[in-house]
């Protein structure tokens, strides 16, 4: 039967893209997020969903650029949701609760002079997500997972 043949395959990804992100490369920062946004526009995702994905992608991309040496940003478009995973091998987050607090930032002064370090990154990401997960280990790195449900 068709249902059994499709067992465990209900949510086959429509599209998956991965972007390597280089730490401290402010010239290229935002390019991955821009490509993610452009791709979603091309495949006809609703503008309000694209905006949420764009904010998540850009904030996670900037976090990697600001706080890590390297990382990877992955977009997966499924039939019922979009997933974004941002993983880096940076210093990790020592105090997760503090990191989620609006206004708290560990960004150095030269970063703040560029307009970052407002301490709104993780709160903004969480606000845009239907599901948000943050895994981090000091000295090892950080992975942020976000799922945004698609309507219908």
């Amino acid at each position: 039967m068709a249902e059994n043949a499709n067992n465990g395959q209900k949510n086959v990804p429509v599209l998956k893209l991965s972007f390597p992100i280089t730490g401290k490369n402010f010239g290229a920062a935002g390019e991955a997020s821009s490509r993610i946004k452009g791709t979603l526009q091309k495949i006809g995702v609703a503008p309000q969903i694209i905006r949420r994905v764009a904010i998540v992608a850009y904030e996670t991309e900037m976090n990697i650029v600001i706080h890590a040496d390297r990382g990877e940003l992955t977009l997966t478009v499924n039939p019922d949701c979009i997933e974004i995973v941002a993983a880096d091998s940076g210093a990790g987050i020592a105090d997760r609760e503090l990191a989620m607090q609006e206004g708290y930032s560990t960004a150095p002064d030269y970063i703040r002079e560029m307009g970052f370090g407002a301490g709104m990154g993780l709160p903004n990401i969480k606000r845009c997500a239907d599901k948000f997960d943050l895994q981090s280990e000091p000295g090892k790195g950080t992975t942020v997972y976000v799922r945004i449900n698609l309507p219908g």
Partner: protein
Amino acid sequence: MNLSLKDVCRFLNAETICGEECLDRLVTTVYASDMMSDVLTFPREQSILITGLVNQQVVRTAEMIDLSAIIFVRGKRPDTVAVELARRLGIPLLVTRKTMFESCGLLYGNGFSSVYNEGE
């Protein structure tokens, strides 16, 4: 009352750096900030950003939340990389010699709204 980028230019005596063809765009809300993550907190339709920050990440921030334009205050001008990026993305860039305080006051007094109201 329908206000446009043309009206913004008029109230702020602003000059267009790029995006002259977009000055008929309607504008409803205004965000004034130099901190990009603060700007990303309240994405709104038909919104513009007043800022003193001139790097290309301001343009990227505008791209992510579809800002209608960016206005730089105190005569500050973005570098050529930022301008080329804005041109490519279709984001108008304007510049006014007025301060941020005066720019905000003029737009607020002439009918533009804040991106959020306290208590929202």
